[in-house]
């Protein structure tokens, strides 16, 4: 299975590049980041606040299927150039993960295709690696819980 998303995280560095090409005009790709209703749909999170402008900020809240809020995220927006650039911070509230800095670059490839490059800078190489390991660790925990459930039956 080939992924369209490329992750480039060099050993020992505290940053990472996430690159993806879309079959979308750059204007539509940018709108997916700029409009709250659209962000809610593809991120699967509730948008409490989204001020996409210089000195703006944002707040997201993700709930589980029972409606309990499981993750609150927020950040400040440093700069926005429509169809080109968003510079912002990202923080997961009440977690040990430090705030990260994100440079989102939107590029037109053709009239119908575009590229997004996310350059994410972490507090330290170790903090970056902890974030990288998160989805893997979740998989392990889920496997573990499922085994426990089966044993109880």
């Amino acid at each position: 299975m080939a992924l369209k998303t490329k992750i480039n995280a060099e050993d020992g560095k505290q940053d990472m590049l996430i690159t993806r090409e879309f079959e979308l005009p750059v204007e539509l790709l940018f709108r997916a980041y700029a409009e709250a209703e659209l962000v809610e749909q593809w991120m699967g999170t509730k948008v409490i606040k989204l001020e996409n402008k210089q000195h703006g900020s944002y707040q997201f809240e993700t709930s589980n299927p029972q409606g309990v809020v499981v993750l609150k995220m927020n950040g400040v927006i440093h700069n926005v150039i429509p169809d080109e650039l968003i510079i912002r911070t990202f923080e997961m509230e009440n977690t040990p993960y430090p705030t990260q800095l994100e440079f989102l670059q939107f590029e037109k490839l053709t009239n119908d295709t575009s590229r997004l490059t996310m350059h994410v800078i972490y507090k330290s190489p170790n903090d970056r690696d902890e974030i990288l390991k998160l989805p893997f660790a979740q998989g392990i925990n889920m496997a573990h819980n499922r085994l426990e459930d089966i044993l109880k039956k």
Partner: protein
Amino acid sequence: MVRNVRLEMNTHEVSFFLHVFICNGKYDLVTVDSFFYRKTLRSQITALYLQRNDCIMKTRRDIFQAIADPTRRAILTLVATHAMTPGAIADSFDSTRQTISKHIQILTECELLTQEQSGREIYYHFNPNKMKEVAEWLMPFAKMWDDRFNKLESIMKKHKTNK
């Protein structure tokens, strides 16, 4: 009673299967089938199983721990270009031979370095296959973003045609 359970796990839409044999309320044998997880997850699950059943297992060194140290990364970079003796490796660093020897031991334990005897000398080689295991840890992260972006793409395509 022995039960054979096949569990389908799904994390960020990466599916994998666990084959579990349950005997007397303990899980007895676990294998994992998946495109992404293969060896790394299998050893993690085995470690969990052993922990839960109070078995003593030989600690397997975490490959991430191994490459987190700057000196060990420097050793890997050095040896990656050509096989070297422990003496030649130690000469490239200001640290004591004992310190470097400890680093080499850790890298060898997690199989990032392999030994080869040549006459009276031992040469250390870099094992690139082992580094691929690190890349496997990255896969669920890449998959998580890929799923998100696929969703973004399909939502925006609809958005485009609806207008």
